[in-house]
């Protein structure tokens, strides 16, 4: 298991904001320490900034409920190839 071998403070990339996906990553964080990146998406990438924030807000309540300080989490707004979508 990479997290057991890693000598520094690991940054786990990436958890989707979906409940079970996020929970399993949070469990890794609880067991091994480190930081986590949460993507502003569930199954699909939301179109607008507002929709992405909604997804993140949901993830945030789950993170807090699981007893984590949001300080340990980075949130990825999801950069897409320029021109592919409205970035």
């Amino acid at each position: 298991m990479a997290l057991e071998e890693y000598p520094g403070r690991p940054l786990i990339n990436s958890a989707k904001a979906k409940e079970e996906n996020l929970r399993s990553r949070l469990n890794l964080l609880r067991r091994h320490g480190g930081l986590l990146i949460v993507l502003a998406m569930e199954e699909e990438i939301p179109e607008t900034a507002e929709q992405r924030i909604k997804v993140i807000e949901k993830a945030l309540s789950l993170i807090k409920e699981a007893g984590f300080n949001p300080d340990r989490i980075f949130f990825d707004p999801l950069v897409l190839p320029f021109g592919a979508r409205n970035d």
Partner: protein
Amino acid sequence: MTIETIKLFNRLGLKSIIGLSNLSFGWPEREKINAAFLCLGIQAGLKGAILNASEPTTMKVLSGALTLERIEKKKFEPMSPNSLINFLLKGKKADIVLKECLKIRPDLLGLSAMITTTVGRIKEIADQLRANGLDLPILAGGASMNRLLAEKFRVHYAQEAIFLPWVKGRPPELC
């Protein structure tokens, strides 16, 4: 859109991170697009980026942005007027610096020597202050200063010191 999302994250007090090179996927001269976007992101309050560290332009933009941020922060740090000697004694001899220090009784003295011919002046000043019982910390920097010299002169080496003579309500006196 990403920039907008970063700003919304900020409002929730959340730290944002991006995969920078995603943006330029499929584009020619990716590096310039990456560097420009990183700059926009930092401006919007981005806290982290996974990026290609072998791109010199991107790394320079990053280093430049961090330098600006540091200066910006320093500028707005509250400074208490008596915690620093707030004027420059440019090109002044040791005895004049001593006289001013005896008058003002600063908590700290900052000295800078830009060329090797003037670096000795720092030792001169430090010695004279000590000889007159002024035991204040002396920070010495400037292009010709280094750690070894600082030890020899018995002063603190100020490698990244920036002098900002602005003190609220008390304009600096430039001599």
